[in-house]
């Protein structure tokens, strides 16, 4: 089966890869580009562990074909921290113990970042519904919601 | 002698008794004493049991001490999730 050549941008860097037309963006990120931050929890868009942004829009990378990345801009968890310091969301997740096992954390951080870029002052209900597609089995979400709200408050103060 | 309380489901393997007296100073000797008294108990002990000594549940340690006045209960093997 012949492969497709794709040129794309990932976390601001130009990237190229060859992929089978059946491979998803998640497969490509993990298996061809070595970006294993996005996780496959379900492969069917139900868990959100593979969340990335595609031209700034939050998506499940398991529901995007690798071939569709051509000419697009992709952002993953690996690109959230600006240099040496952590993004406020990342810091607050550690501070609040908003992760136990940590497998859902990359997807939740990508999703929460997308939320705060769109809505810097979300209510608890808005955070809960925005993140409804990001399953966490460890925490009961309590500390995750608190971490997102706290990060939002801090980011509003700085802004 | 140490009195060992069995769970009642074991009566069939212990000649109808729920309390068996064995000569023992350790948990391991409790178990070997039980088998010596009632060979039918071998299978269940091999499959795994725990022993409560004065309320402390010994999951597997055979060297744990037991004295004559200890309250000893045989329990099914503990595990967790």
């Amino acid at each position, binding site marked *: 089966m012949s492969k497709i050549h794709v040129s794309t941008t990932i976390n601001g860097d130009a990237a190229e890869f060859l992929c089978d037309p059946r*491979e998803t963006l998640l497969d490509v990120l993990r*298996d061809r580009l070595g*970006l*294993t*931050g996005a*996780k*496959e*929890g*379900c*492969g*069917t868009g139900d*868990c959100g562990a593979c969340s990335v942004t595609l031209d700034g829009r939050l998506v499940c990378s398991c529901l995007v074909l690798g071939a569709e990345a051509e000419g697009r801009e992709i952002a993953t*968890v690996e690109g959230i921290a600006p240099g040496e310091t952590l993004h406020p*969301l990342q810091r607050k*997740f550690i501070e609040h*113990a908003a*992760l*136990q*096992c*940590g*497998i*859902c954390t990359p997807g939740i951080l990508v999703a929460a970042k997308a939320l705060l870029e769109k809505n810097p002052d979300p209510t608890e209900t808005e*955070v*809960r519904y925005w993140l*409804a597609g*990001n*399953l966490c*089995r*460890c*925490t*009961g*979400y309590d*500390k995750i919601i*608190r971490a997102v709200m706290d990060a939002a408050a801090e980011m509003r103060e700085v802004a | 002698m140490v009195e060992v*309380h069995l*769970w*009642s*489901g*074991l009566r*069939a393997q212990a000649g109808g008794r729920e309390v068996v007296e064995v000569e023992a100073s350790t948990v391991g000797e409790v178990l070997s004493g039980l088998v010596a008294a009632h060979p*039918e108990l071998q*299978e*269940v002990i*091999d*499959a795994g049991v725990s022993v409560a000594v*004065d*309320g*402390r*549940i010994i*999951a597997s*340690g055979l060297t*744990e001490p037991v004295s004559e006045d200890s*309250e000893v*209960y045989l*329990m*099914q*093997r503990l*595990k*967790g*999730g």
Partner: protein
Amino acid sequence: MALDEYKPQKGGDQLEQGHAFKYVGTRPDRPDGTDKVTGRARFGADITAPGMLHGAILRSPHAHARIVNIDTSKAEALDGVKAVVTRADFSAAIQPAPGMAGEMWNVLENVMAGDTALYDGHAIAAVAATSALTARDALKLIKVTYEVLPHVTDVDAAMAADAPVIRDGTADKSVPPGLHPNVVRYHQSGHGDVEAGFAEADLVIEDSFTTEATHQGYIEPHACLGTLGGDGKGELWCCTQGHWNVQKICAALLDMETSQLRVTASEIGGGFGGKTTVFIEPVALALSRKANRPVKLVMSRSEVFRATGPTASTSMDIKIGMRKDGTITAAQGVFRAQGGAFPGAPMEFTAMCAFAPYNLANVHQVGYDVMTNRPKQAAYRAPGSPMAAFAVESVIDELCNQLGLDPLEVRLKNASREGTRASYGPKFQRIGLVETIEAAMAHPHYSAPLAPGQGRGISCGFWFNHGGETSVTLALSEDGSAQIMVGTPDIGGSRASMALMAAEVLGIPYENIRVTVADTASLGYNEVSHGSRVTYASGLATIKAAEAAVRELCKRAAAKWGIEEEAVYWEDGYAKPSGPNAGDFEPLHISKITRSMGATGGPINGHFEATPEGAGVSFATHIVDAEVDPETGSTKVVRYTVVQDAGKAIHPTYVEGQFQGGAAQGIGWALNEEYIYGTDGRLQNAGFLDYRIPVASDLPMIDTVIVEVPNPGHPYGVRGVGETSICPPLAAIANAVSAAAGVRMRNLPMSPPRIFEALEAKNG
């Protein structure tokens, strides 16, 4: 080290005498936090090896079928396919035996079917190929001829006389004569005279309950990378709760020497008991041996649901007698649990935990372990206990309703205390049930007004906790910092707890300690991270290892000062002379000692290995408010409070996290999660779409109250906290929903159609 160093007389007592902690009980950032928020942490599926192949497993579409023939020739001929394995590629030496005595054979049979497919999803064959897509394509080319057999998936149906026999001869000697061959183990225990007790009661309620199988629902599917050469030496990387156990089982299933297989535990994306055994790991190794290349195997979500280890489903009959003043006079329970096509449903824990919270003169419990055509159950957070609490606490709730009694006062009146004879036999040591009930009574939640349509439920819950084989090594560096090797995978922040306990002993900053989960070749045996044992047992071992290092540090200081070892004590990171008689020496900081350790006797390490047997049992009391929409049967949990005895909270934030996580999983189990089998015996909802675990918008914030009644079996009083938190929720929510809906809910999950049907039946 002498065993008596962690016996009851230590620890807890010391704590109650007002021992002040400097690090324990604080809430620092977890050491692996940055790795886990940046995507750097490597989980099961995140590793690769040069020349790696990808594996895939062919699974039975039938609930029960004889495997007549497997033709792998077309798959083998496909370009890129490097190996195909079937049961013939695993050990022939392991033989079946009745009950749990045959467990190694049971595991093998579950990993790869022998002559019969026993459930929908049972592994039949596996392929390794140059890409994951090729491996999946190859599976479609394997031709299996099945002879479909009659199947049964329901626990009560499997005990009926006409049920198909799943495997005759599996029952062990515990099973009384006359039962169906699918009943493979039996438990009976209790004390007193229940009939006499019921006769003393003013009200006796007898009722029946069922719970469906649920899945641990960890977000990370099982994944591993195995390599095994013709020289019999292998390496395995996998996500597991216990890599020594994986090592032991894989070696047996592949006829290897255990020491020749080195297993490394990756970061683990949740387990909750479901990753305490093996499923794909031996298959990856068998494929690797055949292909002579590393093989990576990653389960799909559908495979996780169909072919890993969900919990047991149960059918239970409860009878409890109570006097008008709330005294329970007698209690009995019959607990039937199916755990799939193998022995092992945790019915003995269901039976033993059922009445443990109560001081009962007369109590009797019976358990049946029943086989069905479902996947082999695995442990799930306090295996067996949540179902028991659901049934028992529902009946107690109903007794309280009918006698007009306050449900928490009734629990308090009957509560087990130190010295109470437990329903499962021995007398309790120091326990904290009363303290949790009192804290629940005092909590504002319990007296808060309810809105119309809402109901409040409460429940107590119990779990044993566990110790288990444990090895820990602590090594000091030249600069006085410390590294700790533990063997229990860090599922929820245990590196932080270990570092806190070591910091407490060594008197050095938490940040100066690095905790590593060692591989099987780098540390002695460690039992699986299960039974809420990690903070208890690895924690105890870490304290003891650190104390061993401190003794050596004191020895070096004594040598430097030329005084007796006994005249030196350790405080806040310094060796100090123990008094004026010892001599007048400037306290010696740890870094001063370690800097010259090579020249003063060699490296300073502490280590500890033992099977600590002082895991204290633990209790919790939960309060929940639920709102039911009477038109749709839909339930919303509006408020939730967890009160639990942690013994001593080492890192309170992560203790709260365990409480909250247990409650959330319990909410899912109570309301919506269930394995749904069709009449064809196939699993209907093998995905997160229709296996409905709670999402963020389903839940309220979950309040927590940490009660600390020290465990006498741990130096700092720690009790495991991971499992007890899932024991009360099913019952607490059922009681809340029953109150809100005005109708007793006896079957879980209380999904909207079930509540609607109950309301319809009530309203006529």
